[in-house]
């Protein structure tokens, strides 16, 4: 079965993330919205799997092998998985 796995790659909390800081300070705060934003990247991985769990497992394995995030500075997590 074909799945899409949404993989979120973001900076570790200890790494300053100036794009999110700019969005927070220059856009949200200016509009009176008191919300903090951090920017990252979302990758959609289309793959074959037997079930949701296997799809997630495969996606995380691919992420580690291909270094879709740099383990020194990033964390990655699956935020959504869907059967196509």
């Amino acid at each position, binding site marked *: 079965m074909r799945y899409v796995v949404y993989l979120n790659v973001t*900076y570790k909390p200890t*790494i300053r993330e*100036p794009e999110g800081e*700019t969005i927070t300070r220059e856009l949200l705060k200016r509009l009176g919205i008191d919300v903090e934003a951090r920017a990252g990247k979302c990758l959609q991985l289309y793959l074959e799997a037997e079930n949701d769990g296997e799809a997630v497992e495969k996606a995380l394995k691919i992420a580690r092998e291909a*270094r*879709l995030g*740099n383990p020194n*500075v990033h964390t990655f997590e699956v935020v959504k998985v869907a059967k196509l």
Partner: protein
Amino acid sequence: MKIAVLKFPGTNGEYDVIKALEAVDMSGEVVWYKDYAPGKYDAVVVAGGFSYGDRLRAGAIAAKTKATSHLAEDVARGTPVLGICNGFQILTEAELLPGALVPNDPPGFVCKWIRVRVEDNDTPFTTLYERGQVIRLPVAHAEGRYIPTAPYRVVFRYVDNPNGSIDDVAGVAQANVLGMMPHPERAVDPHVSRGGTGGAALWLSLRQWLKK
């Protein structure tokens, strides 16, 4: 002596490196990444630019090519390797140098002349500099903020930090590998380099080191 200037799709600094080598009576060969073979070269320069359009993140895709695996073999052999700008990013992504280079803080592309201090003159590329010497070099990058992740050996430190690098790091070394964000190849020829020739001693150092 054979010096390879490694070129990936999107590399654009290779001919500046060739010109810098020629300015100090050396020569280099632009080597397309698919043609790179280990054990053939006395030194390797991974030139700057935007390999693979900086897709995913700067240097990440080039770091996973066969050429970079071959480069790791040459590093293990003790071959001097210099990564400039995107070349530095590739070397950190390939874990041939410690740390990571992340988007600048403040964000955006920075392109200007800056001052850097030579902190270590015990590499194949810095022997002719004085320790503590301040030189001017140009920078041009958007992802140059150095984040250390392991013990690191600083070779160049920014006097005017343009990108938020931790500890003002502009260049680090490990064994015979040096990576640096500033462009020493663009500060050699006084006819075109309005900021001076602070990069010339790097290429002269390499020449001297290779002649030993």
